[in-house]
């Protein structure tokens, strides 16, 4: 029975890792805004996670553990490539949102550009909270920073986005036309 249990656990953990791929990719992309690099980071993360899966003591902490591996992979990548690629100068790559397609996609593009201009630390904290819904404590563990730093980075990130985005959208025409027509 033990052998069967080992196989079952192994299969389950593999399935769980595979299910996490999309979430990891979303966050990796929001960090680097480069589809190919995000894909590489996720692959690297999953390989490391699979190899180290026996080190995970608390299954409930699995997601935070995975994202902490992603964070390490991300940091390692830019440490290796520091001389050739500055994180603050990564060009925004977006294969599926040509600027002319729709106004909505232009807004998506604007938001991504605004996120890309945040400092690396601010961007990581904000995307983990906003995209993955991690608690501040979990983000603190994932990025290995104090919770106070999580809060201050998040605060500065959102203030910067407010400055960049909301004042701009406020000026857009047509947004005041949505009026209530009927109540049943």
């Amino acid at each position, binding site marked *: 029975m033990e052998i069967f249990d080992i196989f079952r656990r192994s299969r389950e953990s593999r399935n769980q890792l*595979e*299910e996490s*791929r*999309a*979430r990891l*990719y*979303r966050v990796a*992309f*929001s960090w680097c805004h480069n*589809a190919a690099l*995000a*894909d590489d980071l*996720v*692959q690297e993360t999953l390989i490391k996670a699979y190899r180290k899966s026996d080190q995970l003591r608390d299954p409930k902490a699995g997601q935070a553990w995975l994202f902490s591996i992603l964070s390490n992979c991300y940091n390692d990548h830019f440490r290796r490539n520091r001389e050739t690629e500055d994180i603050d100068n990564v060009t925004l*790559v*977006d*294969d*599926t*949102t040509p600027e002319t397609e*729709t106004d*909505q*996609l232009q*807004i*998506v593009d604007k*938001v*991504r550009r605004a*996120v890309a201009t945040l400092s690396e630390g601010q961007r990581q904290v*904000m*995307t983990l*909270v*906003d*995209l993955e819904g991690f*608690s*501040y404590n979990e983000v603190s563990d994932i990025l290995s920073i104090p919770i106070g730093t999580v*809060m*201050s980075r*998040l*605060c500065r990130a*959102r*203030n910067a*986005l*407010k400055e960049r*985005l*909301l004042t701009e*959208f*406020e000026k*857009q025409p047509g*947004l*005041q036309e*949505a*009026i*209530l*027509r*009927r*109540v*049943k």
Partner: protein
Amino acid sequence: MNDKINVSDEMLNAFVDGQLVTEEKEQLYVSLAKDDDMKKTVCELRSCKDLVQMAYQQLPESSGGSSDGGVPGGNGARHWISGIAASVLLAVGVFVGWQLGPMQTNEVIHSASGMRGATNALAVADDDSTKVLFHLNTRNPEVAREALDELEGVLKFYKRTGQKARIELITNGGGIDLLRRETSPYPDRILALQKKYKNLTFVTCQNTIDRLKSEQGVTAHLLPGTVVIDSGVAQIMRRQQEGWAYIQV
């Protein structure tokens, strides 16, 4: 405005992210009711969060992603564009709602004659009661439960302290599932809340009902007492013009 309480931006962010304990939330609800600037800040923070979530709903396809892995590919483009459009309108609309000033305040009253059961609760808010608008746009039962917990906490607080309050839960998008007979995870609790608190209204969006019908062929049957309004976004903007505190769950 003399009652303004200093609350740090970090605290407001924690409030928006659901990181505060119940007591802290209660205090903040009270502060929000008294401070228009704080309400505006919370609204802006929420809009930022919505915009970030919207901006990464659709991503360039991951080559290693599984076919159902949640990183949609090009085949669903029309679907996700409409999703993004709705999100953009909501996030931007919520913010712009602050900027519109007091206008268009009477349409609700004029057209509310056919409304069942919640006429008083949906009338224009021009009294001195505290008004809190909760917004739910996800079908996640856990989030829906949190929404009910939060609004019940607020209702209890105001009842306990003898203050007048009006609470409205508006649902759109996936949030409508909470108020559909077929899908609601907590129908009994909703009915019990409606019975217990006359100052509570459950509202949903006609646009969402129409979209369910056109995209999925589903006819929404709503729980008794649910008020249907043309556009959830318009209702949120209207409520904010009227001075309601806006809380997205």
